[in-house]
C-alpha cells in the first residue's frame, strides 16, 4: 500500500478507494464478499463429505476417491471456515460495518484505519487457513476444536504437521483481527452516537452488535492465548497440554506435566461464547425485521435488550457442558448443567417476544421477513434440543453423536445463516449501489432453503439417537450397528445436495441484482432507523427505533430523526 496524505477531499486512487479503503461501507462489503468466498469453499467441502458418507467408493472429478483422512481434513476445514470466516465474519463484521455507523448516526467507525487493518488481517488469516488444503501433507485432521495431544504430536496423523501449524497461525491472526474489530465496535457505539440516540433508543441490531463485540473481545483473547500455547507445545518444547508417557506408534514423546483438559477449558471458554457471537446478531436482526415487516413496535424492547445481555453473560459460564464426558468432576458437571439451563430462560423470553411482535401486526411477507420467520422456526427447533443435551445423564449417550451435529447445525448453522440471508435481502441497497434483489427469486430461494434445511438436519437427530458417533469418515469399516443407518445417511446427503443447489439461486440473484436490480427508493421498506434517511439531513434523534403502527399523514411509521 502506497502511503498517501490523509485528506478526505483529495481524489483517492483506485487502490485506496476499493482495496485499502477506510470507509466502513467498503470494509463491510469486503467482509461480506470474503465470507461469501469462505461459505462457498465450506459448502463445497460439505458436499464432498456428504457424497463420501453416502457413496464412499465414488471417484470425484479432479479429486478422485475421498479417503478417510481426506474426509477428516475437509471436516476440519469446513468447521473452521464456517465458524470463523462465515458465522463470525458475516453477521458482525460485514453487516455491522455496513450499517452500524449509519444506524447510530455516527457516519463512520471510531477507528477507520484499524477497521481496514482488521479486514486485511482477516483476509490474510483466510488465505493461511485455506492454504492448508494445498500443502502435500494436507490440512489438519483434528477438527476445528483441535484437541491435544492429537493437535500437538505430529506423528498422530498426516495433516498433523504443517496442516495444524497453518491452522494455528491463521486462527491466531484471525483472533487478533477480531479483537481490533471488537474494540472498534465498542468505541463506536459508546462514543459516536448522534445527539438524542440514547442507549435505550438504539435499534436492537446495534444492541446485539455491541454485546457481541464485548463477547468477541473477551473470548477471542483467550483463544489467541490458547493458540499461542499450542504453538509453543509444538515448536518450543513446552508441555502445556501433553502429559508424560504419551506413546505414539511405539515412540515415547518428550513431554511431561501438561493436561489435555487444560486446552478444552481454554478452548470452550472461547468456544461457547463464540456460539453466541454467531447467533446474537441474528437475534437482533430478527427482532428488527419482525417489527419492521409486522408494522408494529418490537414487543418488549427492554426485555430484548436485557435478554441479549443475559445470554452474553451466561454464555461465559457454560463452557463445561462441552466437557460432560471429558473427565470433569461430576459436581462441576452438575453446576454447568444448571447454568446451561439458565440460558434457556432469556432465549425463551426472546421467542415469546418475537411471537408477540407478530401478534396483531400487518405482516408483509417480503423475502427478508420470510427468512426472519424461518429464523424463529429454526431457532425454536435447534434451541429445544439444547435442554436435552444439557442433562448429563442424557448427554452421556448423545454427546459426540449426530444429535449434537443436528443441534448446532440447526441453531448456529441454519438459524444464523437465515439471519445472514435476511440481512442480505434487507440491506442490499447498502451492499450494492442502492439496488434491491429480486423478490420473486428471493422467495423461491427461501422456500427451497427452508425445506432443505429441515430435510438435511432434522434426520441427523435420529442418527444420533441411534448412536451414530460424529466425525466418522464413513460407515463402511466401522461398527456393525451403524451399517443399518446408511439409508438415512444417504437421505441426508440427497437433501444436502438439494439445499446446496438452491443456493445457486441466491448467488445468481445476488450478482444479477448488484448490476441490474431495481433501483431502491431512499427508504424502500418504510423503516424507521437512521440508515434509511437521506444523508443530507442534520442528525438529531427524537424517538425510539420502532415507532410503527400509528397512521398519520398516510404513513404508519416515524423515523427516529423526525421531531
Amino acid at each position, binding site marked *: 500500500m502506497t502511503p498517501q496524505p490523509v485528506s478526505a477531499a483529495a481524489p483517492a486512487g483506485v487502490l485506496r478507494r476499493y482495496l485499502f479503503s477506510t470507509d466502513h461501507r467498503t470494509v463491510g462489503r469486503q467482509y461480506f464478499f470474503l465470507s461469501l468466498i469462505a461459505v462457498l469453499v465450506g459448502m463445497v467441502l460439505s458436499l464432498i463429505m456428504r457424497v463420501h458418507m453416502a457413496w464412499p467408493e465414488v471417484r470425484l472429478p479432479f479429486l478422485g476417491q475421498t479417503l478417510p483422512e481426506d474426509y477428516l481434513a475437509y471436516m476440519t476445514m469446513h468447521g473452521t471456515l464456517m465458524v470463523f470466516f462465515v458465522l463470525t465474519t458475516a453477521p458482525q463484521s460485514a453487516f455491522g460495518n455496513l450499517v452500524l455507523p449509519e444506524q447510530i448516526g455516527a457516519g463512520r467507525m471510531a477507528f477507520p484505519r484499524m477497521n481496514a487493518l482488521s479486514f486485511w488481517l482477516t483476509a490474510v488469516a483466510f488465505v493461511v487457513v485455506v492454504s492448508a488444503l494445498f500443502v502435500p501433507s494436507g490440512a489438519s485432521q483434528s477438527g476445528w476444536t483441535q484437541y491435544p495431544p492429537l493437535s500437538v504430536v505430529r506423528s498422530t496423523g498426516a495433516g498433523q504437521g504443517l496442516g495444524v501449524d497453518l491452522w494455528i497461525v491463521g486462527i491466531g491472526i484471525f483472533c487478533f483481527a477480531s479483537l481490533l474489530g471488537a474494540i472498534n465496535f465498542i468505541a463506536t457505539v459508546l462514543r459516536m452516537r448522534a445527539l438524542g440516540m440514547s442507549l435505550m433508543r438504539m435499534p436492537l441490531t446495534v444492541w446485539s452488535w455491541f454485546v457481541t463485540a464485548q463477547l468477541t473481545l473477551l473470548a477471542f483473547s483467550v483463544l489467541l492465548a490458547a493458540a499461542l500455547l499450542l504453538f509453543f507445545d509444538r515448536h518450543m518444547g513446552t508441555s502445556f497440554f501433553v502429559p508424560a508417557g504419551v506413546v505414539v506408534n511405539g515412540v515415547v514423546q518428550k513431554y511431561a506435566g501438561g493436561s489435555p483438559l487444560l486446552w478444552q477449558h481454554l478452548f470452550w471458554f472461547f468456544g461457547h461464547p463464540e456460539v453466541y457471537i454467531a447467533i446474537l446478531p441474528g437475534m437482533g436482526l430478527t427482532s428488527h425485521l419482525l417489527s419492521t415487516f409486522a408494522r408494529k413496535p418490537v414487543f418488549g424492547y427492554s426485555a430484548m435488550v436485557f435478554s441479549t445481555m443475559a445470554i452474553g453473560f451466561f454464555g461465559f459460564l457454560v463452557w463445561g457442558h462441552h466437557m460432560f464426558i471429558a473427565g470433569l468432576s461430576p459436581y462441576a458437571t452438575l453446576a454447568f448443567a444448571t447454568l446451561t439451563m439458565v440460558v434457556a430462560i432469556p432465549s425463551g423470553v426472546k421467542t415469546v417476544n418475537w411471537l408477540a411482535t407478530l401478534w396483531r401486526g400487518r405482516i408483509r*411477507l417480503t423475502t427478508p421477513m420470510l427468512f426472519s420467520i424461518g429464523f424463529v422456526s429454526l431457532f425454536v427447533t435447534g434451541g429445544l434440543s439444547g435442554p436435552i443435551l444439557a442433562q448429563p445423564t442424557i448427554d452421556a449417550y448423545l454427546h459426540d453423536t449426530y444429535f449434537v451435529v443436528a443441534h448446532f447445525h440447526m441453531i448456529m448453522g441454519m438459524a444464523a445463516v437465515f439471519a445472514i440471508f435476511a440481512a442480505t435481502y434487507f440491506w442490499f441497497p447498502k451492499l450494492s449501489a442502492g439496488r434491491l434483489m429480486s423478490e420473486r427469486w428471493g422467495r423461491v430461494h427461501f422456500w427451497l432453503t427452508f425445506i432443505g434445511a429441515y430435510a438435511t438436519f432434522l434426520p441427523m437427530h435420529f442418527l444420533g439417537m441411534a448412536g451414530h458417533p460424529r466425525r466418522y469418515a464413513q460407515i463402511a469399516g466401522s461398527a456393525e450397528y451403524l451399517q443399518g443407518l446408511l439409508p438415512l445417511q444417504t437421505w441426508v446427503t440427497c437433501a444436502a445436495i438439494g439445499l446446496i443447489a438452491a443456493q445457486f439461486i441466491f448467488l445468481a440473484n445476488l450478482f444479477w441484482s448488484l448490476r441490474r436490480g431495481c433501483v431502491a427508493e431512499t427508504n424502500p421498506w418504510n423503516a424507521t432507523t437512521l440508515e434509511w434517511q437521506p444523508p443530507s439531513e442534520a442528525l438529531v434523534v427524537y424517538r425510539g427505533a420502532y415507532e410503527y403502527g400509528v397512521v398519520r399523514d398516510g404513513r404508519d411509521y416515524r423515523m427516529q430523526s423526525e421531531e
Partner: protein
Amino acid sequence: MALALLLLLWVMTLATAFLFAQSWLPSAISSGALRADSHLQLSLAILGVVFVLAQVLLGWVVWRHRERDGTASDTRSGSMALEWGSVGLAAVLFLGMNLYAAKSWAKHSFVGASRAADVIRVEVTGQQFRWYFRYPGPDGHFGATKPELIDASVGNPLGIDPDDAAGTDDRVSAALVVPAGREVEVVLRAQDVIHSFFVPELRMKQDALPGMETRIHFRADKAGEYEIVCAELCGQGHHQMNARLKVLPEGEFARWQAGGAQ
C-alpha cells in the same frame, strides 16, 4: 403465501413430532441405560409440547395477521406480565427439568463403584486405533506399566512391567468380557491421544485421556454381544476403532476367567 407458510410449518411440525416418536434407540441392557431412556423420553415429551406450541403458533400468527386491507396493527409494545410470566415459566420448566435429572446424575456419578469383592475391575486402554482390556488376575491388583516397555510385537501392548509381581497374572484381552448382573468398574486410560469409550446399549460414554484415569461403573443385566466404539476424534482410523462387549452368564464368565488364569 401466508397460508403456504402456515401449512409448511404445521406439516413440518407434525412430521417432526411423528419422527421423534419413533423408536430410534438401540436396546438398553442396564438399569442406568433404562434411567437415561426414561429421562430422554420425558424431556422429549415436555420439549415436544413446547416445540409444537411454538411452531403452530408461529404459523397461525403469520397467517392470521397477514397484511390485509382495512386492518391496522396493534401498537402495544410490551407487557411486564408477559415478560415475567415467560421468565417464570421458562425457569420452572428448564430448571425443574435440570433438578429432576440432577437426582439420577448424582445417584450414579457422585459415588464410585462399590468396594465389594465381587466387583469386576477392568482397565480399558485406548490406542490409535484399538482398545485393550486388562484384568488384574487372581491377586486383584494391576501391575505397574511403563511407557518405554510398550511394544505390541513382543506381546506387551500395554507396557506391563515384568519386575512388578502384581502384573504377572494380569490378563490382556481384545474384548471386554463381563458377567451379567454384576457391577463392573472400568478404569479408562489412553496411550497416545484422547479416545472415548462408548457402548450405545449402556447409554454410556466416557473419554479416555493420556496422563489421567477416568472411571465409570455399570451393571449389564442382559447377556449378549454388544459393540464398543470410539466417540472422540482420534485420527484417520477413528471410525474403525471398535471392540466387543461380551456379557456372559455367571457360569460362562467363571469358565472364561479360569481359562485366562492358566
